[in-house]
């Protein structure tokens, strides 16, 4: 075997450097070619897009121009819409909220006969009955203590009859907005 011991690192082989440079040049050439092809494709797409844009601009230009009302009239219109929206909106609790409250607060021996909830007016008419008048009274007090109701009115009270052994309260509620 030949003796290959050597105490210095050989300098760069210029053939290797030239080969690497050649490979890099080929890679750059290929990349440039790909970029040129891509640029041409983009140019073609741009022509089509410009045409579409022109067509859209023409369509917009051909539409009749609608003059907006003066600012004062627009403000008045906006105020009216707001007022109508406020009027049309429900006041106070929704029916579901009212029923949930009744489920939780109504005494066990009190039966709810009917509920008529006018959400826009913020009023509800309850008919409840019980064999125990004290339970109905307690229920009425709970209604009065609930902050969500601005007014609790016992509209009608029915006593026991020969057919029905129960006391019936007809209660009118006004809900807070």
């Amino acid at each position, binding site marked *: 075997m030949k003796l290959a*011991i050597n105490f210095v690192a050989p300098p760069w082989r210029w053939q290797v450097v030239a080969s690497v440079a050649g490979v890099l040049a080929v890679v750059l050439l290929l990349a440039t070619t790909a970029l040129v092809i891509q640029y041409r494709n983009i140019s073609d797409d741009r022509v089509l897009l410009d045409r579409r844009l022109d067509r859209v601009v023409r369509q917009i230009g051909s539409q009749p121009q609608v003059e907006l009302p003066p600012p004062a009239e627009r403000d008045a219109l906006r105020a009216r819409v707001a007022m109508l929206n406020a009027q049309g909106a429900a006041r106070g609790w929704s029916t579901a909220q009212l029923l949930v409250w009744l489920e939780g607060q109504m005494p066990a021996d009190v039966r709810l006969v009917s509920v008529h909830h006018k959400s826009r007016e913020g009023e509800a008419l309850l008919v409840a009955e019980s064999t125990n008048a004290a339970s109905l009274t307690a229920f009425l007090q709970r209604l009065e203590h609930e902050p969500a109701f601005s007014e609790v009115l016992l509209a009608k009270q029915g006593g026991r009859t020969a057919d029905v052994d129960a006391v019936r309260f007809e209660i009118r509620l006004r809900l807070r907005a």
Partner: protein
Amino acid sequence: MSPSSNNLAAGLYFGRDSVSCVLLRADAGERTVVSSGTINLPLPLFKGAPQEKTTRALVDALVACSAEVRGRHIPVHVVVPDAAFSIAAFDLEQVPAGQGTLERLVEFRLAKELGSSAGACVSQLLGSSEGKTLLLGASMDKAWLASLLSACGAAGIVPWSLRPVTAAIFNGFHDSVQGASGAMITMTADAWSLWAWDVAGLARPLRSQWRLGLSDEREIAADVERALIAYTDGHAAREIGQLRLWNPGANGALGDALDQRTQKPCDRRVWPETFAIAESCAASAALAACVMAAATA
């Protein structure tokens, strides 16, 4: 740029007392020595630690003898006498994995067996010999290596390789020794070395020393004889089929002294034969460096 592309190669020989530079041109298989020059140094190299004035003298000598090489992109191959290195071959049962481990092993073994101080180490796995793996290790004093390389840099020369002179010469005739064992004595004006190789062509360094004087041939011959006897006694399969002497320009005294101690006369042909510069061992060594590089490039 390879020698084949510009047809030029240069060899530099850093001897202890001289520096030699040879520029070789190879055209279509024809090799021509373009220029050669040898400059004697005022201060010896490889003696003690390198000093600034030594390096300066080395630069001056390089500038004087390498005018056609400096500043050109020519492959320059440097050879240094084997005596400037610590070289040994180790028979390993197991080769350590990793180049770092190998270098540490070489450093340790060189320090243990040759007493060399820590230096720049290189190694080469030569192959399987006598049932073991043969590892060639060499180290060179870092300060002197740096001094040589800095002198080259200051002179505008970029070495492509730096190796012992015997490595260049052995590689030159390596192909012709396949299948035949032998030994080679390389002698220049300032140093000599002895290497032996087996039938597989695996070389082992046996001796490398500075010369004591110009008339020390008899002592060298006796040392060679002792080293070869020790080598062949080391293993039953070892033998010396031929003895070569590379000693260009010498008066033949060493060859005569060797012939008196061996059964058959030593081969005194100088490689590269057709280009040997008879008047200068140093120039021949430099020539061998660049011819070897051109042949193996």
